[in-house]
């Protein structure tokens, strides 16, 4: 049964993608109905998979011989909960799209890629063969590219898509190199065998694998120094941003680090590198969110920042804290993105300076946006509070003090930019047209479940930790019943320190006029933050360099067939010479 359910979680969205594509855009009602039906079915199937997560199932669907090993899937706790997130939020994003994408052209392409993505994401987390993981990893990147560039007549959307593809593709090389290296030493792509036998690899090779995977994870999860692609990915339709660039695909990097943590934890300097990347990203992205004037970019920076928290927790050894924060973040960030989608749909702009005072016209959107914001800030009893405190606690216990202080500072900045964003959109004087309508019915159908989730997913801490502890033999996951977690968090002094900093952050926006001398003192920093600390400049330099190198090398391409054959024959001779020399020496 676990076999059927696992395969259906992956196959249902893919079959749906094919069906939606084949139906064609002429029958749009049937098309969207099919998209909803298949994504909902995948969500239900993945929910049905939860009871099997602790059963230790692992099965092979195909034996690819010695080259690629057996194509195995293992629905364990870590994989199943991420598959549930992918399919459920995928379903809600599709439902939301019914309103949001109404009247757009080529919706078949849109729904097909969304469903294709959902299936690939489920495959990525359920597969237990590293080669398969790599395949699914790249498929998700491809879907992300196709959906960012969905409006392919918009140069910004096309550029954003290509940027995402190049950066995540570069990171993917790290994953491939790591997987091949592991295979060459251990003779298997199987993940649990790798975790079991990683100690037998030479230290240098294991370190290469560890840092290769870290590069892949950083690129996928938009961590320093690869964080620049995610804000540009905001050209995608908003439901796609909510699904791929907030709730699911960007978590793949965090998933990868968490999955392989037991093998890499002992690699020298690996943990401290992970911690540094996490806190630097969290702080940097939060400061950029404070100065950004684009609603979706604020949310994108905030996603990068929260992912930084998760990476930080993994580096400090808090696997459960990071995964719990991931779960909660998926719920409230998808909610925030879809809420922002409703605002953008109603006002037709993403510029915060052209909004303001929308609360009266859009009370439902405002209500759910407030819930999401409070969860993001980490106000008690919303889900973000619990997991953020657990992350900070894990960081305090397992990481250096400076990282903890930076993480606390980030919590304050998070409060500041979230309050600023909320205020600029829904309160204050109006700077643009007041929209004629609130979120539509399909939008509400997607927003309400997520709002409820943002309020209650922290209650799952107990069952969630039990599921992870029971199904991950190589990880040390503590059993943490919900009640104990609540007591632990509420009795820790760090919690109140964090809450005090959060309160300061909120107060900073409230008293922004009185604090303007302070803000002026940070003017240079704000300038640097809105220029993304020079990373965009660095990206442009790399692009220019590549183009100039291409121009310079153009003369080597004669376009003459005979000369090309000379080059091929020459290269062949060279390779033979190297092989012969290698065997002689």
């Amino acid at each position, binding site marked *: 049964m676990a076999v059927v359910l696992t395969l259906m979680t992956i196959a249902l969205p893919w079959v749906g993608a094919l069906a939606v594509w084949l139906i064609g855009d002429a029958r749009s009602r049937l098309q969207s109905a099919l998209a909803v039906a298949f994504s909902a079915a995948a969500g239900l199937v993945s929910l049905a998979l939860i009871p099997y997560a602790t059963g230790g199932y692992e099965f092979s669907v195909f034996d690819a011989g010695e080259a690629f090993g057996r194509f195995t899937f293992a629905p364990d706790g870590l994989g199943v909960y991420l598959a549930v997130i992918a399919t459920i939020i995928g379903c809600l994003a599709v439902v939301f799209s019914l309103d949001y994408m109404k009247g757009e052209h080529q919706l078949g392409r849109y729904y097909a890629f969304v469903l294709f993505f959902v299936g690939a994401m489920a495959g990525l987390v359920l597969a237990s063969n590293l080669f398969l993981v790599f395949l699914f990893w790249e498929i998700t990147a491809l879907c992300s590219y196709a959906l960012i560039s969905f409006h392919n007549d918009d140069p910004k959307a096309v550029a954003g898509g290509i940027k995402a593809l190049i950066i995540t593709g570069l990171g993917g090389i790290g994953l491939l190199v790591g997987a091949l290296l592991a295979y060459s030493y251990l003779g298997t792509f199987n993940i649990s065998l790798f975790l079991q036998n990683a100690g037998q690899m030479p230290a240098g090779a294991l370190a290469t694998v560890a840092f290769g995977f870290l590069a892949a994870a950083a690129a996928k999860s938009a961590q320093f120094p690869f964080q620049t692609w995610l804000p540009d990915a905001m050209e995608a339709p908003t439901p796609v941003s909510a699904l791929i660039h907030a709730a699911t695909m960007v978590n793949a990097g965090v998933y990868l680090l968490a999955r392989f943590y037991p093998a890499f934890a002992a690699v020298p300097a690996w943990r401290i590198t992970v911690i540094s990347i996490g806190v630097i990203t969290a702080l940097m992205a939060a400061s950029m969110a404070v100065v950004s004037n684009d609603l979706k970019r604020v949310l994108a920076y905030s996603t990068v920042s929260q992912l930084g928290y998760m990476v930080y927790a993994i580096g400090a050894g808090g696997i459960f804290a990071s995964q719990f924060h991931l779960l909660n973040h998926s719920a409230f960030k998808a909610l925030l993105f879809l809420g922002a989608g409703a605002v953008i749909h109603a006002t037709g702009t993403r510029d915060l300076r052209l909004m303001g005072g929308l609360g009266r016209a859009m009370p439902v959107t405002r209500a759910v946006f407030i819930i999401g914001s409070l969860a993001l800030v980490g106000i008690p009893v919303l889900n973000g509070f619990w997991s953020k405190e657990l992350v900070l606690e894990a960081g305090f216990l397992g990481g250096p003090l400076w990282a903890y202080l930076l993480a606390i500072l980030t919590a304050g900045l998070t409060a500041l930019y979230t309050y600023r964003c909320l205020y600029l959109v829904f309160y204050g004087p109006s700077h643009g047209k007041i929209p004629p309508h609130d979120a539509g019915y399909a939008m509400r159908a997607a927003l309400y479940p997520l709002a409820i989730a943002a309020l209650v997913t922290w209650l799952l801490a107990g069952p969630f930790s039990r599921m992870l502890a029971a199904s991950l033999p190589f990880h040390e996951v503590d059993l943490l019943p919900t009640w104990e977690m609540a007591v632990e968090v509420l009795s820790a002094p760090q919690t109140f320190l964090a809450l005090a900093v959060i309160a300061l952050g909120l107060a900073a926006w409230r008293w922004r006029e009185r604090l303007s001398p302070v803000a002026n003192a940070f003017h240079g920093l704000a300038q640097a933050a809105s220029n993304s600390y020079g990373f965009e400049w660095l990206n442009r330099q790399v692009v220019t360099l590549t183009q100039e190198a291409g121009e310079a090398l153009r003369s080597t*391409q*004669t*376009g*003459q*067939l*005979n000369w090309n*054959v*000379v080059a091929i*024959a020459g290269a062949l001779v060279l390779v033979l010479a190297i092989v012969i020399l290698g065997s002689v020496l």
Partner: protein
Amino acid sequence: MSWNIGVIVLAGILGLLGVGLYGLLVLRNLIKVVIAMQILVKGAILALVAAGAAQDQISLGQSLALTVIVADTIVSVVGLALAVQVRSHCGTLDVRALSRLKK
């Protein structure tokens, strides 16, 4: 002087590869280029079969040879189809005409 089969096959392989490579290097007519490529690939197929026999893995060598034959046929068909297109677009089969793509 004794001619054993190995020497003959080796000479055949090198001869076919050499003729094919020479053709690819100097010929300018696209049809002739395709023919030269065919000769080159025949040398490679012969090498596969011979290597299989030499390593006592005759069936492996032969199955690889069959695979190459299939792939080679497709390449030739595409090459000839391209030649037809080049002829109708450029009015000539000279491969030098194709370097106009660069500009």
